[in-house]
């Protein structure tokens, strides 16, 4: 019986490893390999063209703003959902998760319907002379949409597990709202928050569908994934290699994020464990 389960384990490990290597690791390595197939100077040239540099800029702007907005929103929403009782709490919690279940293309299209020329908000936007659709604000909005739940998703379970005892104890000793958050709550959610922010950034950097619906001008509103797509579709053998070169940038960032992620996930779990040890004994 024991021996059987051991063989079972080996088979499962082999299958999973093979699957991960074949489906994920080899393709990503081949991206890097391909990107260097025309030499290093071609590689450097490919990633410094005007359109690529513009795409890097747009991507960083969109990611930065999405990260900021969603971190602030994520903290506020998690606080609200774990520390207050109100009608419709479950509904709100479910609404926050919408981006997980809606296709990003639909997110992009819905913004066109809202802010585009036929959208209901367009008279107002025109009056204020603000352009959202097919401009950088649209790209930013789309990025915010798809990365909306990441931070709160990570913090809410931690806030629930920690409970509000310590916060109440601090209040009884005369501490007010923000002091309580800074001194008592924040140390608890720190690692989960950083972890959520990393996931949020990773998703923002790689977003294609929603941004694609709202961004049509290469060299102005294109993000890196759109730029890669454009390079690849233009079809010459040079531009295909360039596409791989630009892709390799995202792959490298992804690897860095993966490493950071494991570090913070580990730290987060470690602090969680100390907590459990405390409760048990």
């Amino acid at each position, binding site marked *: 019986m024991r021996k059987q389960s051991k063989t079972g384990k080996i088979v499962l490990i082999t299958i999973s490893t093979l699957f991960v290597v074949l489906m994920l690791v080899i393709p990503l390595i081949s991206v890097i390999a391909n990107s260097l197939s025309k030499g290093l100077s071609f590689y450097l040239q490919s990633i410094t063209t005007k359109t690529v540099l513009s795409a890097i800029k747009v991507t960083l702007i969109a990611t930065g703003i999405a990260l900021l907005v969603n971190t602030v929103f994520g903290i506020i929403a998690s606080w609200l959902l774990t520390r207050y009782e109100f009608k419709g709490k479950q509904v709100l919690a479910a609404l926050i998760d919408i981006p997980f279940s809606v296709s990003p293309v639909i997110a992009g299209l819905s913004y066109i319907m809202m802010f585009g020329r036929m959208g209901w908000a367009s008279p107002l936007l025109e009056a204020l002379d603000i352009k959202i659709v097919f401009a950088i604000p649209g790209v930013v909005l789309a990025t915010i949409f798809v990365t909306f739940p990441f931070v709160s998703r990570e913090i809410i379970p931690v806030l629930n597990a920690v409970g509000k005892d*310590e916060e109440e104890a601090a209040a009884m000793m*005369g*501490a007010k709202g923000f002091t309580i958050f800074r001194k008592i709550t924040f140390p*608890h959610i720190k690692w989960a928050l950083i972890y959520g922010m990393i996931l949020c950034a990773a998703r923002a950097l790689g977003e294609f569908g929603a941004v694609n619906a709202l961004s049509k001008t290469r060299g102005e509103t294109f993000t890196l994934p759109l730029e890669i797509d454009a390079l690849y579709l233009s079809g010459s053998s040079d531009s295909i290699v360039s596409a791989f070169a630009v892709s390799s940038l995202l792959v490298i960032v992804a690897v860095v994020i993966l490493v950071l992620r494991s570090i913070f996930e580990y730290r987060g779990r470690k602090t969680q464990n100390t907590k459990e040890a405390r409760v048990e004994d």
Partner: protein
Amino acid sequence: MYVEVREINKTFGDFKASDHVSFGIEKGKLAALLGPSGSGKTTILRIIAGLESADSGDVLINGKTVNRLSPSERGIGFVFQSYALFRYMTVAENIAFGLKVKKQPADKIKERVAELIGLTDLTGLEKRYPNELSGGQRQRVAFARALAPEPGLLLLDEPFAAIDAKVRKELRQWLREMIHKVGITSIFVTHDQDEAVEVADQIMVMDKGRIEQTGVPYEIYKEPKTAFVAGFVGNPVILESFEGLKGFEKGEFTRAIIRPEFVEAFKSDNPHFKDIIPFAQEGVIRDILFRGSSLELKIDVGGVLLTTHRSLERRPVEVGEKMNVIIYRLYAIQGNETKLLENQDLKKIDPDNKRMESYLYGDGGYFTT
């Protein structure tokens, strides 16, 4: 009255957690809120602290209504059932927190923390984190931390619940002495009657969100006013019928509540009880539980199971043995009223219990020979 709670009502959904709760506590006294699980003790404590808001009613501290003050403005110390120590702070930092929030000068804080560490016997543990402390030590840190900002009122929610039995007994005494030494008015919550009786100056018994009785421990024990209190304190047996209890008439009463010390069981050849043998009835020992300093006997008397204690100094008994059983008194219940009924047969020959005292404790009495 230093603390006054007036007509507090609180519902969660359609569940009444506090039902017209009123009581008062004098300055410097230690009061216990005693009641079974779910009776609404924590709710009242949290309402006094301002952590929960009442639907109606007032809380007064030192003559001032505090209803509108936030928890941080009430000047109340709170010891949580889980202690709620700040996990990311050391013992000293935990205790200093309330003083730092009040922006007291650093040397004052240091002095006060050192004083409290000494008072609560935590010397040497200043740099430890909460997860490196024993349950009893954590409890003392929570206590010191709550006292640090010199609150006018101290609230403790089941302060001993998470501590093992032996340490708990020591801590009870420690807490009582400490609170009287500091002189702070305090309310603590417990579901353990022994704890309440042992530690408190005053007890409020709660059930289903209502205060059933308020009084000093002796009163609560000796003169339970309601059916609930009679059934809750003194580890009694509750009988649905009086039938076959010698010396008692059922009258209007519906139930009987009998404490172990109300029941005497003796062997037929016991000379000390020969006068009252005619008033005894036969009982059979069904079970014997060893309670350390005494035995607890479960005795079947005419179909009802009574409990009594038996000193280990007396002759051994065994399961199945026939005993003579006398019930000295019982609480008779009618609706929510209780009445202490004396055994009428005994009363006839011994109206003021003098004889009972003499055959138990007098010259040549049971406990003196």
